[in-house]
C-alpha cells in the first residue's frame, strides 16, 4: 500500500518530467500567428449596401437588438418614405449569425475577423454607411502569419501556415 503510493508519486513526477522535456507545446503564437478560420466562422459581419433590399428581417431577428434600421444621413430629394438600411452595434452583437442566416439577399456575410478590440465605446457603433465599408480590423504591429489549425493525433492541434 505504502509502496504503491511511493510508486504513484514517482509516476506522477515522471509524467511531469516527460512533459517538461519531451512534449510539444500547444500554444498558438498570437499575435505573430493568427488563426485562419474556416469559411463559415461567425466573425465580424460584412454588409453589402448594393444588394440590400431593406427588408429589415435582420433587424427583426437579431436577439440582441444590435442591428437597427437607420435612415440615410441625407434623405435624397423628394423621397417621402426613405428606405432604412441596417447598421450594426458591436457593443451588443453576440455573433449568433442569425442576421446572416436570415438575410434573403446575402447582403450580410460573416468575415473571419475575430480579434478586434476598441478603445472607445462610440467607435463600435456602425451606421449603414460605415457598415458598408467593411468590418473593423485589428491592428497588428507586423503582418502576422496566417496559420490553419489542424487536429492532430499526437499533439492535439497542429498549426500549418497557409
Amino acid at each position, binding site marked *: 500500500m505504502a509502496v504503491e503510493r511511493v510508486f504513484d508519486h514517482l509516476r*506522477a513526477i515522471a509524467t*511531469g*518530467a516527460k*512533459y*517538461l522535456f519531451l512534449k510539444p*507545446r500547444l500554444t498558438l503564437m498570437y499575435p505573430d500567428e493568427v488563426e485562419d478560420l474556416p469559411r463559415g466562422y461567425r466573425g465580424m459581419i460584412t454588409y453589402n449596401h448594393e444588394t440590400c433590399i431593406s427588408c429589415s428581417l435582420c433587424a427583426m431577428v437579431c436577439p440582441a437588438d444590435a442591428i437597427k434600421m437607420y435612415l440615410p444621413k441625407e434623405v435624397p430629394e423628394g423621397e417621402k418614405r426613405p428606405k432604412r438600411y441596417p447598421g450594426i452595434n458591436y457593443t451588443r452583437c453576440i455573433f449568433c449569425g442569425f442576421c446572416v442566416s436570415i438575410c434573403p439577399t446575402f447582403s450580410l456575410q460573416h468575415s473571419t475577423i475575430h480579434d478586434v478590440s476598441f478603445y472607445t465605446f462610440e467607435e463600435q457603433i456602425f451606421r449603414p454607411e460605415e457598415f458598408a465599408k467593411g468590418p473593423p480590423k485589428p491592428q497588428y504591429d507586423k503582418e502576422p502569419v496566417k496559420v490553419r489549425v489542424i487536429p492532430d493525433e499526437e499533439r492535439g492541434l497542429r498549426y500549418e501556415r497557409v
Partner: protein
Amino acid sequence: MMDLLDLILQPWIFIPLIFPGLTTAFLVLLGIIWAERKIAAKVQMRYGPLYVLKPLGGAIQMIADLLRYLFAEPIIPKDVDKLTFIFAPLILFGLSYLPTIVLPAGPGFTAISSEMSLLILLGLLTLSPVFTMILAWGSNNKFSLIGGLREGYLVTTYEIPLFLSALSMAVLYGTLDITAMVEAQKNVWGIFLNPLAAIVFLVLILISTSKFPFEIAEAESEIVMGPFTEYSGIFYGLVMGASYLKLYVLSLLYALIFLGGWYPLPSFLQNPPFLAGIMVFVKGLVIMFIAIFMRAIYPRYRIDQAIQIGWHKLVPLAILSIFLSLLVVYLGGV
C-alpha cells in the same frame, strides 16, 4: 582599483555581498520565479512569460514585475497595526537573507568560521515564523489570521524533523561546522551515506518554504494569500521574496551537507577559493529546480494531512536517520 577588488574578495565582504549573499541571492530571486513560471508552463504545454524579451524566452519578466511592484502604491489599510505591518516584512526579508552569511563559499572561505555554523543557520531560520505570525496578526484580516495560524502549525510540524535530519548529518560527521562537513564528504557524499536524512530533508525544504504540495499557508484557493493578503506593491514583493530566499538558503545548505558541497572540485575552480562556490551554486540550483518543479505536479495537501505527514512519517524517519548515522559511525564513520 586593485585594492577595491582585493577588499571585495575578502570573505567577510564577498560572502554577504556577492556569493552567497546579496548579489547572487537577488539574481536567484529574479531567476527562480521566472524559472518557476517557465517550468510550470512547459509541463502545461505552453510558453509562460515570453514577449517581454522574446529572444531570451522572457527572462527579464521578473524585472518588469519588480518595476511594477516598485511603482505600485503600497496600501496601508486602515485598521492594521502599522508597526508590524510595515516592519515585519522588512525584517522577514532581512532574516531570510541573513543565514547566507554562515554558508561557506569554498574551502576555508567563510565569513564567520564557527564550529557550529549549522546550528547558527538553523537557529536563524527558526526566527522567521515569529515574524510571519506577527505580520499576519498585524494585517487585521481574517484570511491573514488563518494563514498565520497555519504557518505556525506548520512550523511545529517541520521544525523537529528538519533539525533531526540536518543534525543527523552532524552526528555522522562528528561536527557542526558546515565547512568541516563538506570536507568530510570529499570521498563519499552525504546523500549516499544517509539517504534517509536526505529524503526527509528534501521534503522538509518543501514544507518550510511553503512549496507545493505543502503550499498551505498561502493557499490561494482557500485563504487568498494567507498572511500576505493585505500586502500590495513592494511589500508584497518583499514577503514573496523572503520565501524564495529561504528556499535559496536551504538549497545551498542541502548542497553543502548532502551533495558534497564543492566536491568534486575541478582543478580550474580550486584557486581562488571562492570559485568553488560555483559548484555549490550549481548543486543548489538543482535542488531549487526540484522544489519549484513540484508546482507543476502536485496540488496541495490539507493542513491536517501535512501535519500528519510531518508527525507520523517524517519524525520517525528522521529519528531512523539518526540511528542510521549512528550505525555508520559505529561501523567506522566517514
